[in-house]
Each structure stands twice: as structure tokens, then as C-alpha cells.
């Protein structure tokens, strides 16, 4: 007996689904036969390349829509467009994020922070609400993408971490508020995934630096997508209002002790 339900009628909407973890998540849904709707803000997306990647999954092509997550009119237009094809949205994944890069308190900006909240945090609330208005019910699964940033220092990440912490707290409250509805709200935290976002925040030198010391700290974005998909299989329905860390166990050991431990092993091996 298969442990998976048939996903061929499943509709997944992934905001920020044309890049990085959002795209990896969409590809995982496609691989399992689900319908994907992926959105992006900037018109820099190479759609042919995207279509090639979806072809390679053996699944269906996604509906690709330009929609600014901050803009409610864009959201409504997006949902109208989805309605032309589907009568429901089963999963909403909030993978969009946008924030100012900062490296000192003097550079924190109230306006930029509030703007980042609108891009990074608020879609977790606004999209499900509007989906309910248009389709008559909330998505069965609402999943926010977060990172280790709220817990542990990440370079230049102050504003993003603030928005992700808010995303996690709001996700917990939504899970409680919607306890009577068939809705699970969870957040998936990822760590050190090789994406444009990582390069933008940590700088181009970070990856080679880690590769030379502890390459196991990098997480495959496909593994993150796979966990998001796993939360939507029905098997995890008793998991609600949780923060799930997808990091190969690395948050626990990343740090000076680990580097020391490995150096000690290397020198004892040499001896």
C-alpha cells in the first residue's frame, strides 16, 4: 500500500516560488503530481529555464504569475487567475522574503523594517484570508519559510531575522485561531542553503569559506522542499503550530567547538 495519497487534484500556491527554496518546494510538489502556482515579483525570471526544470520532474507545468506579495490587488488578480483553473488552494507556501541588508544599528531603518514585514511576514496572513474569500475555505496547509536567523546570528540578517521571528509567532497564533478549521499552520526553518538570497546577505566569499572548512553545513534546497511537501501529505496532520528545522542537524554543532573537534581529529589522524 502506498503511504501517499493521490496528489493529482492537489493545488499548491507558492509565493516566491520561482527561485531558491520556493522553487525547490514547487518542483517537489510537481514531482508528486500536484498542480503548482508559483509567483514572483520582479520580471527577471527566465520562464523557459523554469519550464525545463518542471519538465524534468515528469509533473505538470506550473502556472507562473507575476504578483507582488505586498500588493493586495496583485493577490486578488492572482487568485482570480487561479480560479479559472482550480476551485481550491490546498497548500499555501510563503517563501517570499525581502529585506534591507544591514550591518550596524545605525543602519536600521523603521521604514525599511515595516516594508520588510509586509513582504516577508504579512503574506502568511493575507494570502490565506484572501484565499478563503475567493474559494470559500482556507488552504488545508499553510507553511511559512523561515531560517535559523531568529535563533542564531547570520551576517547582515537583522531585519530578515526580525521578520522571520514575527512570521513564526504569527504562524503559531494562526494555528490556534484556526483550530476549529481543517487548517495546519507550520513554519519550516532552513539553514545555509546555496541560494541567491544567501549570497546577497552573507556575501560571495561565504560559500568558499565554508566549503574549505565544513561543507556539510550546506543544506540542499531540495531537502527543504521535500520537508514542506512532507508536511502536506496528511501524515503530519497532528503537527500544528510548530517550527520544523531542516538542517541536517547542523545548527546544533555549527561553531568553534565543531571546528576544534575536527582539527583535533585531523591532527590525531596525521600522528
Amino acid at each position: 500500500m502506498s503511504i501517499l495519497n493521490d496528489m493529482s487534484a492537489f493545488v499548491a500556491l507558492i509565493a516566491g516560488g520561482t527561485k531558491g527554496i520556493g522553487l525547490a518546494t514547487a518542483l517537489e510538489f510537481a514531482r508528486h503530481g500536484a498542480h503548482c502556482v508559483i509567483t514572483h515579483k520582479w520580471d527577471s525570471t527566465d520562464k523557459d529555464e523554469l519550464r525545463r526544470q518542471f519538465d524534468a520532474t515528469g509533473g505538470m507545468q506550473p502556472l507562473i504569475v507575476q504578483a507582488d506579495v505586498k500588493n493586495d490587488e496583485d493577490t486578488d488578480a492572482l487568485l482570480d487567475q487561479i480560479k479559472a483553473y482550480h476551485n481550491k488552494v490546498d497548500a499555501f507556501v510563503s517563501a517570499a522574503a525581502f529585506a534591507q541588508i544591514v550591518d550596524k544599528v545605525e543602519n536600521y531603518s523603521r521604514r525599511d523594517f515595516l516594508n520588510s514585514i509586509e513582504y516577508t511576514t504579512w503574506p502568511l496572513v493575507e494570502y490565506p484570508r484572501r484565499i478563503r474569500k475567493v474559494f470559500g475555505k482556507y488552504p488545508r496547509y499553510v507553511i511559512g519559510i523561515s531560517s535559523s536567523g531568529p535563533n542564531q546570528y547570520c551576517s547582515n540578517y537583522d531585519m530578515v531575522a526580525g521578520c522571520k521571528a514575527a512570521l513564526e509567532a504569527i504562524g503559531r497564533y494562526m494555528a490556534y485561531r484556526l483550530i476549529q478549521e481543517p487548517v495546519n499552520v507550520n513554519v519550516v526553518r532552513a539553514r545555509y542553503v546555496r541560494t541567491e538570497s544567501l549570497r546577497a546577505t552573507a556575501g560571495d566569499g561565504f560559500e568558499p569559506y565554508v566549503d574549505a572548512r565544513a561543507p556539510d553545513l550546506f543544506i540542499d534546497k531540495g531537502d527543504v522542499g521535500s520537508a514542506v511537501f512532507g508536511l502536506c501529505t496528511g501524515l503530519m496532520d497532528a503537527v500544528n503550530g510548530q517550527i520544523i528545522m531542516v538542517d541536517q542537524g547542523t545548527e546544533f554543532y555549527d561553531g568553534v567547538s565543531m571546528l576544534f573537534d575536527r582539527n583535533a581529529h585531523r591532527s590525531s589522524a596525521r600522528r
Partner: protein
Amino acid sequence: MRDLRDKTVLIAGGTKGIGLATGLRFGRAGAACVLTYHWGSADETTVRAAFERAGAVDPILINADMSRQEDTEDLMRQLREQCEVVDTFVSNVAVAPRVGRLEDINSRDFHRTFDYSVIPVIEYLQAIRRTFGRPPKYMIALSSTGIDHFTPNYAMVAASKAALEALCRYVSYDLRDEDFRFNVVRTLGVITDSFRDMFGAEFEEAVRRHIPEEWLVQASEVADVILALCSGYFDALKGQAITVDKGALFADTVMRLYEEQSDLGL
């Protein structure tokens, strides 16, 4: 992973409660289940009948006291005859002395709890790795939200579960280069025989009065989560503690009770 045919799952404490539910779930998915139990605690006929009703593969039942070295060696020998590899190891064992107050904490209960509920879990992993030349691909230990949220008479169990969770993280680090993932599932108030033994009927009644039915987690729902964690979708989870409580613990506060006092008839 589409189904689990040809997979072997070892469930220590597999004839009752969450352990049994997990066996049934894996069995329904086609896995061969090896269930251990102790102290004449299982009626084999009842367990087999439950598997048959569920349409699950008939399990192998083995009487093994986890704290006895000879029993563990015996179990490994029997496993070796049954399978090439243990794909999944789930530990659902615990002795649970009722200890709540400072003056109740004593060395005897401490050693009994750790000797029975903590060390053997790790020793089983060591034994599997020695016997089969590799660790199980998936290892799950049952824990409880009681480790960082007050639960009556639970001090010693909580201490042992906290120790197990710490060891889970350290072992995950040590075996990071092997095809191995060890995670912990924390449950809240799953009403099983052990729950009743530990907390008594009065507490069960209080839980049912204060917590909406839809928040209570069934053993079968925990089993689904354990299956999911061993399904291939969560392979990048290592050394994590996953809380399976439907979100109930977050809202288990007096503020929530105050808000809902009239609905709950309190």
C-alpha cells in the same frame, strides 16, 4: 518512498500504545515489524489480531528486557536471521516512576529510569550498528512535552527524556557522515494505558474537561508522524525534537482557560 515493502522496522515497546500504533501503521504500509515487549506485558494473540484487522503484515514478537545484555544479543541474533538490515528503529520504552516533589527524588528511581529508558536506547543503536555494519537509516525515540512543560509526577521521566534528547543530538553529530537520522517525537497527553498508569483516571478526566476533544492526539496520529519522518521526505531532519500536539501546548495557559471558561463550563 511509495511503500515500505522489504523494509524492516524494529519497535522496542511495540505491543502497546504509541508503539503498537506505529507497528500497525508501518505494517499497513507493507513493512515487516519486529515488536519487542517485556514483563508478560503483551498478549500475542491480541496484537496479531490487531495487525490482521489493519491489513498489516503479521509481526514478529520478541520478549526482550532492554536492560539485559543477553536479551539484546538474543534479539540481534533473531533480527540477523530475519533481515539484512534494520531500516528503522523506534523506541517507545520507558519506565515511569511517579516523582514530583523534591523529597521524592532518589537514586534508586533515577538509576532505574536511566538504566531502563535511556542507556538501552543507545545500546540498541550500538548493537544494530555492530550487527549489521551500519546504523538504521531512521531512528525515532518517543519523548514528551513534559520535559519543558510541567506535567504532574513527571520529574524523573522528564529528566530521562531530556537526557535522551541531548544524546540524540550528540549521536547525530557523531554519525553525521553515515546514512542515519535520529529524531525525537514529543507528544502531549496521548491517552494510552501508560498515560492512565502514570497519571490516573482523575487527571485524564481533568484533561478531557479542559482540553477540547479535537486537540487530543490519538496514538495513530503520532504513528502517522513517525511514518512520515521515516518516509524519505524528512531526510534532512537530524537531531530534532518534533512536537506532536496539534498546537495544543502553545495555548495551554490560564489565559486560554479564562477566555473559554463559559464554553468549557468551568
